[in-house]
């Protein structure tokens, strides 16, 4: 009888952000769809009520079905039977419950059986599902593929495949290969056009494909013979009904065992082109990847929430030396830091979701009519912000969930190391988040641009202009001080004039910026709602200390130190 939406005031808080009014108004085209669809809202309050009602349904399924199944799913995993994937029993039950409730595809337009939900509630659903079962969150989250189909595929493909999402058809994005992991330009899977049957044919191997036996697959393949780089790659849709892909194996993984990771063989598999040739990687995968990174961030926050709740409960029950362990400072420090990180990551998650919402909505509107110059400016601004925030968010939230689950086991002590408690599963599940959909190191590569262009700095200054209650002045001043020191190290970094050294300190530069931005977000939240006050204090203290350490490191790196790093080759 648990409901992961109703029991989480933080989600309800973020859902009620002031920018939602504008987002929903644009998304619902001034509530005109109500004339056509009986599920469309007639005004803002109606739309928010609908969001809450649907999140309540998903929250209930998460609490009553998915979370109780998580342990058995982890134990059973998915099976390979005659070249096909059979989900664990619990996974099947989870998927059926969500399908029956009609909550797949809620972010799609209504004409494709969707509910036209904005990104914010959609991301909240992903967070709740991950809190219930981190591995299952992938099967749920891969419905993101529908968005790529919606944005780039032909009308014919859209009409055929998008309505199926709501019916529970699953998706996968088939990108990586044995020799093409982070470096997707190296993709080799071959696509050639079959004139006789008027379709493309795919041949080759894909590896590490999450939910690899999905109904609808988006496959990155080399359509231009003789090419070796990204410009020879196109994007294809493969329909499982064609039965031309064999699952060669399901990987044995450390965690997220309910999510089958597959090695696939494409045997002259018929496929249809998504969008235009040659834009596979440079445009479509990049877009899809941004969505997927947001998804991993939601997954990270959801899993952190689950770990934190278990840990607080345990610390309140477990007694040592005649008192509950939660009363020891050493435990309180861990719990306080865990909570602060979760609150900060979540605030960043929904801030970024709103940015994505804003520019995507304008993009959709632009398909119907031309935007006004003001709208165009606004779209560009939000796109720039989303591009800057997405890698920062993915980096921080995935690193945090690793730290949070680490501390969660620490608070549990030996008990946490045992299979009897869910902590060890969560710890294993967390590990992948900083690897897939772009490793932390690759997030830094994307995010460091926004350090260079000053996007982060401008945002910090923007946040500084917001007025706050007098009791938070000292926190704000600390953040301002942190920003001036950030500016100083950025200047130093620029002056380094050595690209390799810049790469070496890049991560710390991005993290420094992230700490300040999250500090501001928590401060703004605390200003609105008391439940953030403790986390704001803890987070800003922690962030300040961490930034000083990063600053020291950055300032101490010189040619000599770099030379020492360069010697590392064996």
């Amino acid at each position: 009888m648990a409901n992961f939406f109703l029991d989480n005031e933080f989600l309800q808080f973020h859902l009620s952000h002031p920018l939602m009014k504008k987002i929903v108004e644009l998304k619902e085209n001034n509530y005109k769809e109500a004339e056509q669809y009986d599920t469309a809202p007639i005004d803002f309050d109606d739309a928010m009520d609908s969001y809450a009602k649907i999140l309540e349904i998903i929250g209930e399924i998460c609490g009553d079905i998915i979370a109780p199944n998580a342990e058995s799913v982890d134990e059973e995993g998915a099976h390979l039977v005659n070249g096909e994937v059979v989900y664990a029993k619990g996974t099947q039950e989870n998927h059926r419950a969500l399908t029956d409730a009609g909550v797949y595809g809620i972010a799609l337009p209504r004409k494709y059986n969707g509910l036209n939900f904005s990104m914010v509630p959609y991301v909240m659903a992903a967070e709740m599902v991950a809190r219930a079962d981190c591995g299952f969150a992938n099967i749920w989250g891969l419905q993101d593929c529908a968005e790529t189909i919606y944005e780039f595929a032909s009308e014919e493909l859209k009409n055929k495949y998008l309505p199926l999402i709501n019916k529970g058809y699953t998706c996968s994005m088939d990108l990586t290969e044995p020799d093409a992991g982070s470096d997707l330009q190296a993709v080799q899977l071959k696509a050639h056009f079959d004139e006789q049957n008027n379709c493309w044919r795919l041949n080759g191997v894909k590896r590490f494909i999450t939910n690899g036996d999905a109904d609808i697959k988006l496959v990155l393949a080399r359509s231009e013979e003789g090419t070796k780089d990204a410009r020879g790659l196109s994007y294809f849709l493969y329909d499982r009904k064609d039965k031309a892909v064999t699952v060669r194996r399901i990987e044995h993984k450390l965690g997220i065992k309910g999510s089958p990771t597959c090695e696939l063989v494409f045997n002259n598999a018929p496929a249809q082109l998504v969008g235009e040739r040659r834009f596979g990687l440079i445009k479509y995968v990049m877009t899809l990847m941004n969505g997927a990174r947001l998804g991993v961030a939601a997954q990270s926050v959801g899993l952190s929430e689950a770990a934190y709740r278990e840990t607080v409960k345990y610390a309140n029950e477990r007694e040592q030396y005649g008192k509950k362990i939660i009363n020891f400072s050493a435990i309180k420090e861990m719990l306080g830091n865990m909570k602060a990180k979760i609150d900060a990551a979540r605030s960043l998650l929904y801030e970024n979701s709103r940015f994505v919402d804003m520019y995507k909505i304008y993009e959709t509107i632009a398909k119907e009519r031309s935007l006004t110059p003001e709208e165009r400016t606004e779209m560009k601004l939000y796109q720039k912000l989303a591009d800057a925030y997405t890698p920062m968010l993915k980096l921080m939230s995935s690193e945090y969930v690793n730290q949070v689950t680490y501390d969660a086991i620490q608070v549990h002590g030996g008990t946490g190391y045992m299979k009897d408690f869910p902590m060890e599963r969560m710890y294993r599940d967390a590990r992948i988040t900083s690897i897939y959909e772009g490793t932390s190191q690759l997030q830094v590569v994307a995010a460091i641009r926004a350090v260079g262009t000053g996007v982060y700095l401008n945002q910090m200054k923007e946040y500084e202009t917001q007025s706050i209650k007098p009791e938070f002045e000292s926190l704000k001043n600390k953040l301002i001080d942190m920003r001036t020191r950030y500016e100083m190290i950025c200047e130093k970094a620029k002056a380094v004039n050595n690209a390799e050294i810049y790469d070496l300190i890049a991560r710390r530069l991005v993290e420094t910026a992230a700490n300040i931005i999250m500090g501001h977000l928590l401060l703004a939240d605390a200003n609105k709602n008391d439940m953030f006050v403790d986390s704001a204090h803890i987070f800003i203290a922690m962030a300040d200390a961490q930034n000083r350490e990063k600053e020291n490191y950055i300032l101490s790196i010189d040619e000599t130190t770099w030379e020492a790093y360069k010697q590392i080759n064996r």
Partner: protein
Amino acid sequence: MSFRIVVLAKQVPDTRNVGKDAMKEDGTINRAVLPAIFNPDDLNALEMALEVKSQIPDATVHVITMGPTRATDIIREAMYRGADGGFLLSDAKFAGSDTLATSYALSKAVEKLNPNLIFCGLQAIDGDTAQVGPQIAEKLHFAQVTYAEEIVGVEPQTMTIKRRLEHGFEIVKAKLPLLVTVHSSAKTCRSRKANLVLKYKYAKAKTEMESVGNQYKKLYEERPYLHIEEWNADAVNANVEHLGLNGSPTKVKKVDNIVLTQKDSKVLSACDNDIEQMMVELIDSKVIGG
């Protein structure tokens, strides 16, 4: 003519999680402190009705509930799960009804819909009598099958039904029109469906509409499927003498709280050996004899 299925459902106080103020001094339930929910067995009944509906073309499922205006909550809940609509049976004259008066009022309401099939939960968690369903069947001269766990077969004039019994099950065939009371072991009710929740969230009885904003009043006018019809005693042609306290022979004299001291039980088979063994034990423990 379509195939009409009626589900009788009740909004009940959630007696599964009771606190210390759940009972008033006079031994009756303090409804104010307990959340109002869809009676659990009635949800099983709704599921069974929806499954039958899916097997018969043109079948409809309507819910009838007797209670105060807020009982429309469960009509909406049923619509979120696939029911076509519902009726609220509400009148001050129903107050104080025991099972006899309740079954009378409900049977009068059911008559208006002239159904082929009626489903109701075996019993309500606030009374646990399991009498209302059978009494309605008697009054309507319907065949009745109690303790139903599963509909095994749907034929044009009959239903084949699996009944859950204490030590097993039996499968029976019954002619329509038929009333079925559904056991808690029957299939759990499906969840609310997203698009139906959004479609029906403003479904209301007329008296509820007074308190909503004008923009929703307009919506209500335009969309007839949002109307939950309300019936009072007159609307169902009920004789006032059979309603409420007048029509209720049951008088509660006193409620005692009985705590069973012995927790264990023993099952004996009806053979001479077991009975002899029991006698020996009872004599040894001085429960009987001297």
